[in-house]
């Protein structure tokens, strides 16, 4: 079975007078339906690994494979197109556009992709917001929403183009325990149904325990990779 997204022996170094190695020779393949949690102490390279998996960053060494295809030779535009249709991102900070309503924020990736008709886009966006318990928040602007709601809108936006892989970078970092737990419930549900993969970076061991696969990074290396 081909992995949706995989890294092979990737190393990411920040160049400079004293180069900083963020990720060291990591190999990791994410298959369909997997719910992967990446944990580790701060500075262990969790987020950097996620950015490599998410095609936001290019490795200094090694290969990043998208559906088995090497991304090294793909142009920046091709990577952007892949992110648009195959990947969804959720960050610690919600990153909603403040000028747009929740609904418009969710519509953003669909409008950019332009595959669905306008009516279909609106139906899908409303459906996503509803599924995440935000039916009443559609017309509201981000600054009228609570932190937990904003993060759920961000998740809805990440799911807008029905991505094969959802990548989340400390998505619960700014949330209280209850909201954080709710977000993880959503991820678990997403991974459980329909073969969507979820990769979450978190430092919260309790939440990570709910993932189907846990990877622990230390100093940019995989220290532990356990399933179940």
């Amino acid at each position: 079975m081909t992995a949706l997204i995989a890294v092979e022996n990737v190393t990411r170094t920040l160049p400079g007078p004293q180069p900083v190695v963020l990720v060291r020779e990591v190999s990791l393949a994410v298959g369909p339906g997997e719910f992967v949690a990446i944990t580790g102490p701060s500075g262990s390279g969790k987020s950097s690994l996620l950015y490599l998996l998410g095609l936001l960053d290019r490795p200094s060494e090694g290969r990043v494979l998208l559906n088995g295809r090497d991304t090294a030779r793909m142009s920046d535009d091709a990577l952007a197109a892949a992110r648009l249709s195959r990947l969804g991102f959720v960050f610690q900070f919600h990153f909603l556009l403040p000028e747009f309503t929740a609904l418009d924020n969710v519509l953003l990736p669909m409008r950019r992709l332009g595959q669905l008709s306008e009516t279909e886009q609106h139906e899908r966006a409303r459906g996503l917001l509803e599924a995440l318990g935000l039916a009443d928040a559609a017309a509201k602007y981000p600054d009228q929403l609570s932190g937990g709601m904003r993060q759920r809108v961000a998740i809805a936006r990440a799911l807008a183009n029905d991505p094969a892989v959802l990548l989340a970078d400390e998505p619960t970092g700014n949330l209280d325990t209850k909201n954080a737990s709710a977000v993880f419930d959503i991820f678990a549900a997403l991974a459980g149904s329909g073969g969507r993969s979820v990769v979450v970076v978190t430092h919260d061991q309790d939440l990570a325990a709910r993932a189907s696969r846990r990877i622990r990074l230390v100093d940019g290396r995989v220290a532990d990779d356990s399933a179940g």
Partner: protein
Amino acid sequence: MSLTLAIAFGHLKRRKRQTFVSLLGVALGVGFFIAIAALMRGFQTYFVQQVIDVAPHVVMKDEFRSPALQPAEIAFAGGAVAIRGVRPREAVRGIREAGAKIEAIEAIPGVAVAPVLLGPALFRYGARDVAVSLAGIDPGRERRVTNIEKDMTAGRLEDLRATANGVIVGIGVAQRLGATVGDSVIAVAPSGVATSFRIVGLIETGVTALDEREAYVLLRLAQVILDRPNVINQIRIRLDDVRQAEPLARRLEAAFGYRTESWEESNRNVLALFVIQNAIMFSVVGAILLVAAFGIYTIISQVVHEKARDIAILKSIGFRARDIQAIFLVEGAIVGLAGAVVGWAVGYGLIEALAQVRFQSAGGPLRGREGFILARELWTYLAGGGFALVAAMAATLIPARKASRLNPVDIVRGAV
């Protein structure tokens, strides 16, 4: 509304006041350009119109641009021949075979021709002497070539024929002589011949230099007084299409050899002045728009800085670098376009306000005008709008490129 537009509008809406101020800068630049252009172009076209109206469009004179070549120079063209102290040959001055030439020119469609003999004379009235430039004209032809009839404040052109020894003088000449219509003055020619003339008409062109020198008599009379029988020394030409003046002048000069000047050549100094005027106008407006462009640069730069997180998320969603650049270029274009539209209104308003200004002009070519002459031309609106758009887009280019190059990973790392 397209996504790019929606995002661009969103950004500008968040910075209403700044957007408004830079928009106003553009609008003022465009508005002033339109108003100043209307003022200057109005005056210039009016002036040119006056020049075209008053004077013949093309004048052929009994002169040559360069002295005739000496036989030795012709025989050894390009050789080391130098001849010094050559004096013009004693010959009857004037345009030779003028009749044939006039006929030939008249055969060109859309052309009116009049022969003239110009010469110096002294008008004497009592104890006063005034030097005049005596023009012998053919009234029937002259009225088709110059505006002489329209400029007459007393008498009629036909009176030249109706009265024996009639003369039409410039109003300045009459004033300096202290004479008026009906008075008889003595004209003294360089040869010493004195003839009595009766003033039958007055001319006021508004150009003082002309009004204080001009005197018109019948061609036949001028030839007698100036002792140049059957000679004319100017052929004046008027065209239906003024733009043909310069090419026609060149053609005639090439064909006949005589110095032939179009109105453009005769008024080259004034036309050159207009070029300088226009250059000043464009510099001033360029400066205003430059300042406005800096304003746009500042807000777009601030928006880019402030919206770094938005740019990061848009890129992570899958917006390409050029999509991001387009968003900010559109913002510049919105400010430029809106500024241009408001500027059109400002310009229109300024023109109409200027049109209300009333003043009495002292005389000269603007005599009789009671306000500014304003050219209401579409091209100034289009040009002003075009400048504004280009300035706005240029000002946006640098911040927009910077935005498109932002690395989302850097921003996401910094934001945490």
